[in-house]
């Protein structure tokens, strides 16, 4: 948790760095100079600093620094930056680089390399997922906005404003971002687990198949041996024996097939059940469900009586012990409470008041109805002409 909280803060200094010289930075990126560097790099495997080539040294590795994305070989990095931060040795680049930041280049195109770095930063902040939104349209609009910000950052349009937006959002939604991050991490682990499970299953299936085949082969061999034995021991029509044996073999073969399918089918079922895991987890975070109440929470408790467990009613005693009644769901307690509520049902009802109230609403609705009817008349005559 503490690590997660630190993160947005940790990103802050880096962010300010870029905002400071954002404009210049981007103009630099569009400069033909870098494009040239990039082009020549692609064709030849020569370090632009020490000019040693991969041709002579196949183990040579190139590294870049996300400050300026200038490529150089590993030994140059060691040589220049081991004793602390130093300026980039590429002509025209004044940036100060640190050794720790150097890493291998993933993409051939440095622009994409940089784009992905920016995306990583943005994705850390804007990490909502579809379930967070009421409608798909909302989600899509959100995605659109995020993409706008990212696109601007990448292409150097309104960098400052975009940074501000990003920062603003990060500060406003710190808690949520952390939650989402946790969620994503969890999803990733369950995904990995599921993947492993699938793999395991297919391995098991394969093994089962192999065993099956082996068994079949054994059986076939045995069958053949049987035929030969019978031929040797039993007298009678040789062809008949062979034919019988062969039929037996075939039948065995046929019956063996269908039962292989079933286990795999049930296995996938179980796996499908697992898929719901994530959905279930989230439900608990929502409000705990209240017990179902009919009549929208209106509860009629017996105000005037307290039902006892047992009353001495001889005409009923057979019923609450007789299995024939109990099996049908009869409960003596229900019977008691119903009797009581019937007995006291009339209490606390004030007929006068209710009648008065009803008159009021009744007359109102009557006039309204008349108006409506009149309206309709008018409409109808309109229709006719």
């Amino acid at each position: 948790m503490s690590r997660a909280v630190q993160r947005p803060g940790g990103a802050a200094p880096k962010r300010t760095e870029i905002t400071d010289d954002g404009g210049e930075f981007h103009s630099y990126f569009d400069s033909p100079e870098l494009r040239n560097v990039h082009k020549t790099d692609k064709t030849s495997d020569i370090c632009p600093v020490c000019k040693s080539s991969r041709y002579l040294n196949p183990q040579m590795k190139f590294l870049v620094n996300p400050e300026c994305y200038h490529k150089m070989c590993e030994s140059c990095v060691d040589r220049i930056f081991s004793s602390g931060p130093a300026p980039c040795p590429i002509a025209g680049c004044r940036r100060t680089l640190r050794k720790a930041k150097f890493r291998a280049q993933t993409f051939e195109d440095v622009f994409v390399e940089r784009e992905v770095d920016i995306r990583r930063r943005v994705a850390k902040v804007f990490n909502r997922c579809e379930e967070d939104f009421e409608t798909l349209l909302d989600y899509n609009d959100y995605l659109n906005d995020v993409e706008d910000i990212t696109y601007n950052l990448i292409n150097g349009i309104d960098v400052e404003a975009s940074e501000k937006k990003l920062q603003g959002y990060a500060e406003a939604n710190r808690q949520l971002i952390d939650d989402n991050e946790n969620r994503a991490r969890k999803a990733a682990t369950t995904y990995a687990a599921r993947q492993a499970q699938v793999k395991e299953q297919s391995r098991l299936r394969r093994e089962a198949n192999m065993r099956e085949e082996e068994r079949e082969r054994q059986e076939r061999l045995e069958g053949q041996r049987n035929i030969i034995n019978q031929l040797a021991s039993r007298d009678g029509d040789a062809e008949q024996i062979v034919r019988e044996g062969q039929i037996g073999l075939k039948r065995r073969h046929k019956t063996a097939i269908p039962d292989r399918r079933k286990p795999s089918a049930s296995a996938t079922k179980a796996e499908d059940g697992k898929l719901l895991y994530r959905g279930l987890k989230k439900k608990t975070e929502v409000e705990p469900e209240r017990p179902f109440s009919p009549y929208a929470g209106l509860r009629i408790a017996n105000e005037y009586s307290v039902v006892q467990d047992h009353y001495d009613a001889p005409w009923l005693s057979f019923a609450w012990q007789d299995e024939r009644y109990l099996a049908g769901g009869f409960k003596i307690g229900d019977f008691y409470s119903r009797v009581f509520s019937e007995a006291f049902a009339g209490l606390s009802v004030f007929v006068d008041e209710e009648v008065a109230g009803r008159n009021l609403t009744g007359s109102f609705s009557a006039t309204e109805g008349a108006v409506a009817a009149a309206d309709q008349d008018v409409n109808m005559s309109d229709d006719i002409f």
Partner: protein
Amino acid sequence: MRFFIDQLEVLFPYPRIYPEQYAYMCDLKKTLDSSGHCVLEMPSGTGKTVSLLSLIIAYQQHYPEARKLIYCSRTMSEIEKALAELKALMKYRTEQLGYEEEFRAVGLSSRKNLCLHPSVKREKSGSVVDARCRSLTAGFVKEKKERGEDVDLCIYHENLDLLEPSNLIPTGVWTIDGLLRYGEDKKQCPYFTARRMMQFCNVIIYSYHYLLDPKIAERVSKEFSKDCIVVFDEAHNIDNVCIESLSIDITEDSLRKATRGANNLDRKITEMKSTDAAKLQNEYAKLVEGLRDAGEQRDEGAFMANPALPDDLLKEAVPGNIRRAEHFVSFLKRFIEYLKTRMKVHHVISETPPSFLQHLKELTFIEKKPLRFCAERLTSLVRTLELTNIEDYKPLQEVATFATLVATYDTGFVLILEPYESETAQVPNPILHFTCLDAAIAIKPVFDRFSSVIITSGTISPLEMYPRMLGFTAVVQESYTMTLARKSFLPMIVTRGSDQGTISSGFQIRNDPSVVRNYGNLLTEFCKLTPDGLVVFFPSYLYMESIISMWQGMAILDTVWKHKLILVETPDSQETALALETFRAACSNGRGAVLLCVARGKVSEGIDFDHHYGRTVLCIGVPFQYTESRILKARLQFMRENYNIRESDFLSFDAMRHAAQCLGRVLRGKDDYGIMVLADRRFQKKRAQLPKWINQALPEAETNLSVDQATAVAKRFLRDMSVPFDGRFQEGVSTWSKADLLRHKAKVEEDELRVLRAEREDVDMGGGDGGGDDGFDEVDEDALAEMDL
């Protein structure tokens, strides 16, 4: 000949009918009546196409729904043949009925074959023709013209708009040639005439791809109504067509081109922003709503589904982060860049789509969902930008289709990266194969959409394999035998050389000199005894080359040369065409020739060697697939796990269907005759997998012959064949006149009655007793089977 099947009158354009044709039609009718699918195997050369057409047309004209027929075949020549048959049939119907029916049929082919535009039609490559045509016919081009801009239009296309849209051509059967001639006459484009008339036709004949390739089907075939009757003829390879239509290969070169395409798009977007920003805004607004217009969406069952464009996708709005054109282009660029980094790896990688997506997301923050929309989003953008040179964007489109598929299907696909072309190659030339493993995915929309799908071929054994692989259930599965008055083809299996050494193309012994010599002897012997043409099939080019060079060293070819001209198929289609031409000439002028070709090559699939062009076919070795291919391995594993089809079963099935296809090449009719030699020890065990009609003609005694035995049998057979044979002997046996047909029907009815009566009697007697014996047997068998479990 006119006759009835149940209540349906069938007009058959020949005076005689083969018994198997009648049976075939009966089963077809059963399928159509029950609105189900079927798999039918009809021996080659027994008039499959004409029976199929006669019955379906009769059905169509008899019932008020007039279900449309979509007839798919594989090659142009087969399409032409079917059209010719249909034309003859309709002519016959008109004569018999005394009036012309309201009937239209068109054959559809590519623009390349149907274009009339004087300069466009001269282009060599089909895709260039397509592209140029599009630039002359696209909707916005016309708009521009109307605005008074100076743009070219195709006059042939414009003329169509002057006609009544449902009546572009008169009724009748329109062959490709017919369309061209009519188009030239009336100055209207044959291609668009055919495309637009498809909705108003009773019969459409075109190639598989129009229905199975999602990119084409989406544009051409999605509007057909549900009750259409779909026929896949020559369908023994349909699973491979399905798989190929969804598989994509990506190379470094195609990625480079895709990047260029993306950069072009970028430029166009900026251009458009400054000139016509409203258009982009318009598109944006539309995308907020969803991919398809609201109107289109409402009518849900209106279209055939597209495997590359799942249904739920159509109903959903495009994800927000690729809504804007520039966002989308940068998205594509990132994806391409990612693929480029993947290409750098120097070892083979095989992974599933989910793991690919996972890695992609970690590296580039591309989520699965926008990826799924890629293909459709690109189409929309291309349309908005009014790009005409779509050809340039093809690699980009391919990448987009790949993106959509990889994000749509978790299973049934595999990604295989092969950094080197071959094991020994030193310079990497990486290819990323995105391979479909499940033939059912591509064909599923067809089965879902259409109530009757008929899969038929001359060699489609074992029948039950196809429903399993393609994921459907067939109401009828039948294989017909060939009724013959005399045995006119001689299948045999040669397992040994004259020296009794086994012959086989198995890996262990395939280069063994004694085996090669025995094969050589087999070839020389058959070259000596066979009149005219002889065709030899090898399992692969590699094997063919090595064996030919060895024969050369053994002076076998010199002996062969004395009897026959030797011609060889090569991967180059032009060379092969030349070889074929020479072959035919040599067969016709009496020199005689032998054609050495490959069981999976062009010759084995589409070329007929009827009559004297092919008197003997020699199948040297079992034509197994190259099993070391990673793609094949992945597919085998998939089928094993999902369809429970064993690796060895599939491989042997696949080899045998190709072998059968080769054998079928020489026998193209009942008056034809030929020898079919399967030369490999392993064929002996696989004979059950041959089509029924071949298998039945193969007596047990001829499944284990040595070369000299085979020669003797073949000589006897040829002597029999040389005796003049009167067609009258066939009467009533292998060909039926109307009287024979009626007699057969009466007999069938009588049999049925007898069975019914017998059943009735059984019931009267108190049931059970009569069939007691049988019942007992069954019980016993079941019990036995259970014990074995």
